[in-house]
């Protein structure tokens, strides 16, 4: 069972947004979250930076440059996705077309949200990211990033890698562990009865 389109490999233009501490309020401002769902969010992506007064595109913002519009890869600064846990940030990125973010580091909740939605969080040093130009290819199976003839390896948690490569549905996968979960609860009810209400 798949939960999203698998992303064993992502190739395309990489939009540089090399600011540190890009927070999820910046990725999708709260006022742009208008419905109880996971869609209809791409228009609000980076709304505070992307638009001028009256929803006019700000020509100075990278995604408004025709070269980078709907780029499948974003290049970011350190602590990318910090702040609010809102998964809307990843849903908005995915709906816009982003399939991978390459940054020196990610906030933990954002990284986990990426893995559950088919967006690869690739961690590489800022110096390496600074050398990437235009077209970048991420091979998640081989754990490499290629750009301009250069090829660098990256680390990713093996579980996260497996989920992304195959587009796995985490709940479906965990439900195969039901016997272990039941056994845990049976023992735990005796050891810590106060947990069970």
């Amino acid at each position: 069972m798949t939960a999203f389109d698998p992303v064993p490999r992502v190739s395309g233009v990489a939009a540089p947004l090399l600011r540190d501490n890009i927070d999820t309020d910046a990725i999708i401002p709260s006022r742009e979250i208008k419905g109880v769902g996971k869609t209809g969010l791409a228009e609000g992506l980076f709304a505070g930076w992307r638009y001028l007064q009256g929803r006019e595109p700000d020509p100075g913002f990278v995604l408004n440059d025709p070269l980078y519009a709907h780029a499948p890869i974003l290049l970011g600064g350190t602590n990318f996705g910090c702040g609010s846990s809102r998964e809307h940030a990843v849903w908005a990125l995915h709906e816009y077309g982003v399939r991978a973010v390459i940054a020196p580091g990610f906030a933990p909740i954002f990284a986990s949200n990426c893995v559950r939605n088919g967006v690869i969080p690739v961690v590489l040093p800022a110096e390496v990211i600074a050398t990437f130009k235009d077209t970048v290819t991420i091979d998640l199976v081989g754990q490499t990033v290629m750009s301009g003839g250069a090829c660098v390896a990256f680390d990713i948690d093996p579980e996260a890698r497996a989920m992304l490569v195959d587009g796995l549905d985490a709940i479906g996968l965990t439900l195969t562990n039901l016997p272990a979960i039941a056994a845990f609860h049976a023992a735990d009810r005796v050891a810590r009865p106060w947990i069970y209400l």
Partner: protein
Amino acid sequence: MRSRRRRRHPLAEPRTLFARLWDAHRVARLGPDDDLIAIDRVLLHERTGSVALRSLATAGRRVADPARVFAVTDHIVDTLPGRTGTRVPGGEAFLAATREETAKARIRLFDVDDPDQGIVHVISPELGIVLPGATLVCPDSHTCTQGAFGALAWGIGSTEAEHAMATGTLRMPRPKTMRVTFTGTLPTGVTAKDMMLALLAMHGANGGAGYAVEFAGEAVTALDIDGRQTLCNLATEFAAVTGFIAPDEMVFDYLRGRRYAPQGATWDAAVTVWRELRSDPGATFDCEIVIDASTLRPMVTWGTSPQSAVAIDATVPGQTDADLSPTGYDRALAYIGLAPGQILAGTPVDAAFIGACTNSRLSDLRRAAAILHGRRVAPGVQAIVVPGSMAVRRAAEAEGLDRIFLDAGFEWRMSGCSLCFYAGGDGFAPGTRVISSTNRNFEGRQGPGVRTHLASPETVAASAIAGAIADPRSFA
């Protein structure tokens, strides 16, 4: 009550509290670095929980144990007296979905008209939902607040919340361990908020990335229960997976008799187990940070990251000291409208806000009120206080704090997340400079163009009176 100490095997490796809690919740190993972890409590709020519940129902999946799931409306609810719902455009849909889905799934909801309504991380301890040694998750980044009770509590996304509800577990990479020790005694007028802003200033907003952080040391154990929650609240601003404090008698005394806490013989049995929840002497951490609390001063932020904090009587640092890229530094200063070398104290403010899961509990309000007593907010300053829960509001009113706030010129509101973030229903005007007891000073967090300075509630109160960022120690 005395407890007999269990003797450990003399050759047993000393363990961290984190390892103790994590291992006790491991249902299965999923790989060398990943485990399936049992989740004891799931909390939801209307902004992200509604999405999780609806998605779960649409997928035809059931909440495995609804008795251990709790929901609240706090994020977009109106906080003006006489409220009925939300003033956020489109917000009613989130309230309606939360009501509908919690009813269908038989999940207890603390709704806007419930006497126990409040910010999720404030009401959970009040009701005894969080317990020492428990794992607790919520699709809200400040869930780590509840680590103050010796729980492993962390924020997750909506999809993970679905996973936790459907399976009673989460698939997690095991975090590394860090201990942050605050030695010595905090000076008068310096608070848990200042401790964390100092940690963030010293080690950066990503300093805790990849770590589960245990807070320890005499300055931590000397904090009251509210201060400990403020401390753990800001662990997420440190990029930590979670923050927590070993539970002690103060925690047990606080939780005893609360609605969902164990009672009678079960309580006694629980406390016996909880007294063992600590890191062994000699336990090794992947990273250790030690800060002398006696050297700390009231802190205030000058930029657009919580790490951009300095002592209140210090100046806006230069780019190299700010630990930001040149463009990031310029951008932050342009947004906040300050120049390098400028002293923070004395900067005029337009608004003062006391509230949010960081600093909205009874002791926060008491300390702010002590400064406001017999004084008036400076002309032209909009001042608002939003108690963290209706229980906090009632307790504050019972001791007359509401009168002190009102007489000083503060608005006295109903509880909710309110102006901690901008949801469209309630915001400051663009360009407003706000001294705020909240947790995030990001660009646009409190409204487009709003300039946020994070500080303790007493610094907010002092600044409201002065009409400019002010040192609370001069108002004592």
